[in-house]
């Protein structure tokens, strides 16, 4: 009976999902609505190519299908025996070449424009991590702002235990906020494997390569929220590291920058504070859920051998210093990233405390932000 009900509710969920899917931009046949001139250029180029291609395609296959219908043995058609015609052969080599050169010309202009990242108003670095994006505002208004942006879709929706929301898999906890009409240069890099920063409506896609910095740019023409995804296979949660760009007016952007600066100042004070074990444990659980759970799993058992467990592990039950070190600096040639640059002292103190006291780990250790600050040096 239980199974039966479950199936039934699943079917109902499926029907609902199918319906809501259709209500969304379903059966979409073309590019997403463009929000930059570059995106419009891509659409125009694609339209032009499609027109040429379809004309040639129809031409060639009209000849073929005419032949298929007219020149068949069942109609008593006798085979001709010609097998060469130099003039025709030269023509169908040269004419396509000219058409192709015609196609390459506008493409060249588009490429040159696409790659001109000079004279940007704001420069933002996007860093790919397994499996989230980090943003640093490097230059221009908002300089100094930095935060991580994680997918906000709850796991229950992915597993099918809850109805899927409208922006399923395309929602994050913190949007990349930029002002409308300004040239935004995006530097991409990564810490672990290659990712790719892609927002279709802006027509930007740039690989984020560990150890190297690449760049791209966009200038959004209208305010709005534009959603994209990582475009380079980067491991198991490749599907779950979306990108959300929120384009706002200049005034709203200034307000947002102010609010961010305040929050960051509050977080910077933390290093001197001391927290209780309970405070650290509950905060640590949240940090763990946001950053560690994908590999090490909620039960701390990991997914060995690629992603080792923490429950009873040597690191999480051994000396504190080694534990703090691996969280701060990561482990080479594995998926274990260096979190020193991603998380605040308070967050790292909390998550290390949590890992040392969760599941079967009973070290009783409490790690304070000051220890992390010291370990960073």
């Amino acid at each position, binding site marked *: 009976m239980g199974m039966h009900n479950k199936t039934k509710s699943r079917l109902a969920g499926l029907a609902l*999902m199918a319906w809501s*899917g259709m209500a969304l931009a379903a059966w979409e046949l073309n590019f997403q609505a463009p929000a930059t001139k570059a995106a419009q250029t891509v659409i125009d180029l694609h339209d032009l190519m499609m027109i040429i291609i379809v004309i040639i395609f129809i031409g060639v296959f009209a000849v073929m299908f005419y032949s298929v219908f007219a*020149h068949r043995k069942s109609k008593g058609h006798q085979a001709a025996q010609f097998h060469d015609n130099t003039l025709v052969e030269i023509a169908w080599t040269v004419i396509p070449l000219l058409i192709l050169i015609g196609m390459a010309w506008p*493409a060249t202009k588009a490429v040159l424009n696409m790659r001109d990242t000079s004279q940007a108003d704001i420069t933002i670095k996007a860093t790919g991590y397994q499996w989230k994006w980090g943003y640093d505002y490097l230059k221009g208004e908002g300089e100094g702002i930095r935060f991580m942006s994680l997918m906000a879709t709850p796991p229950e929706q992915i597993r099918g235990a809850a109805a899927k929301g409208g922006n399923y898999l395309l929602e994050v906890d913190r949007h990349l906020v930029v002002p409308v009409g300004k040239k935004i240069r995006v530097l991409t890099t990564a810490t672990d494997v290659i990712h790719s920063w892609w927002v279709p409506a802006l027509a930007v896609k740039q690989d984020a390569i560990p150890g190297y910095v690449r760049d791209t740019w966009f200038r959004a023409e209208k305010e709005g929220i534009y959603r994209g995804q990582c475009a380079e296979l980067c491991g198991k949660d490749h599907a779950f590291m979306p990108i959300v760009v929120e384009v706002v007016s200049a005034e709203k952007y200034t307000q947002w920058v102010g609010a961010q600066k305040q929050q960051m100042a509050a977080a910077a004070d933390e290093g001197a504070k001391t927290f209780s074990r309970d405070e650290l444990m509950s905060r640590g659980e949240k940090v763990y859920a946001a950053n560690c759970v994908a590999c090490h799993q909620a039960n701390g058992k990991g997914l060995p051998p*690629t992603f080792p467990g923490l429950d009873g592990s040597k690191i999480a039950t051994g000396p504190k210093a080694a534990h703090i070190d691996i969280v701060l600096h990561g482990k080479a040639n594995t998926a274990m990233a260096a979190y020193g640059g991603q998380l605040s002292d308070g967050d790292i103190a909390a998550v290390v405390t949590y890992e040392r006291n969760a599941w079967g780990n009973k070290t009783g250790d409490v790690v304070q932000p000051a220890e992390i600050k010291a370990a960073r040096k």
Partner: protein
Amino acid sequence: MEATHAHGAGHAHGDGHSHHPKGIMRWITTTNHKDIGTMYLWFSFAMFMVGGVMALIIRAELFQPGLQYVQPEFFNQMITLHGLIMVFGAIMPAFVGFANWMLPMMIGAPDMAFARMNNWSFWLLPPAGILLTASMFVPGGAAGTGWTLYPPLSIQMGIGMDMAIFAVHILGMSSIMGSINIVTTILNLRAPGMTLMRMPMFCWTWLITGFLLIAVMPVLAGAVTMILTDRHFGTSFFSAAGGGDPVLFQHIFWFFGHPEVYIIALPAFGVVSHVIPAFARKPIFGYTSMVYAIASIALISFIVWAHHMYVVGMPVAGQLYFMYATILIAVPTGVKVFNWVATMWRGSMTFETPMLFALGFLFLFTIGGFTGLVLSNTAIDVQLQDTYYVVAHFHYVMVAGALFSAFAAVYYWLPKWTGHMYDETLGKWHFWLSIVSFNIAFFPQHFLGLAGMPRRIPDYALQFADFNQVSTIGAFGFGLSQLLFLYVVLKAIRGGEKAAAKPWEGATGLEWTVPSPAPYHTFEEPPVLTEAKGHA
């Protein structure tokens, strides 16, 4: 010579190999090109089934949003193995199988040039196939990197990655040996009077493919070896932290990977260049320009590799150069398509199954070629790179291109191999089911890519749900249709209408001068070519 002759006199004259081993030992020790060709083809079909099941697992998971059947890690393993197995285990061995069976008969040679190496080339394949397939069951599972094996992701993988690397090494050895054999056979064992420009087109395509393989398989072997040493011996070829560059791997991989596309496509062109004239009852149009087109496609294929890498951040001059070079490939490819259409023009056509598959090939491969042209445009590719548009594009080239051509080849030559005609009605069913379900499976993927669905994801946003459902339905239809193919082939092996030496009215070439089924040994005495032109 005398001594050999005296020794040989001790045996019964006539079939000097009548004492060859029976049962399993016949197949393990055989040096006969027909036996080896048969083994290649069955191996290829077995791998096609394994890779096909993996494809269906992928499509089942993508039937609806959310995770239903598999976890993301396993999904990634499936896409990796599906790609590697289909490319190296199914498609390539299929065309080597055709080459083994048909090349010696087409050029009037008694066997391949290096008969014992031929045996080795084949018997390297099963261990490689087993390594790849078994890597699913080791701790950590198979490589979850996609068939492109990009580092640093491939550095993170478990032992399954090492198994994939060794499998690629072994497959590479097999391919290199096989292609040296083919090139040598074609260059040295042609019957007197068969000049290069009188060779059947299939021989030409394989001659050039052989050179491509010899040139690029060592490059791939080098690339995966560098991954191996980065993984285990502390080198940093692809790690920036040690002074290396992850993008270097992509350059090396695609220097192999792009010619690889033509390694698969050229022999497919060769098959179609036999089937279309045979069923149009008219010589192939523009034989000479076909040969030049194949050669130019092969040459250009070496200088376009980075069009797979438009978004890695190469200099703008590089992006433009690779765009122009890639666009150039459309010219010789267009020449081939025009020549095939001109071959049909004013012919006297019939539409048996091989011809249907050849026409299906022509129609759908051209779509794949055109989407390739769209992708060659750097500005557009920025939107389409790593999306389902690319998945659709290369399945039009690989499945509707190479695989349909392989089906055409099987139906065309099956009477020669088995001595029986296959069931024409069922063959036609196989064609129509395949072409309809193929398009249901892959055409919608163009739209998914345009709308922004990345490839290699086990779960997707809701707006992609509808076309994914359609695609999955088509994929299952396509998979099931191939069981019909197996049935048709088995039926023809077991019996059926007796095939004449030349079962196709319009077929030309030496292979049709020997009885059907072809005797175990053919052309022990070279044939005499009296026709002005020997080619198809």
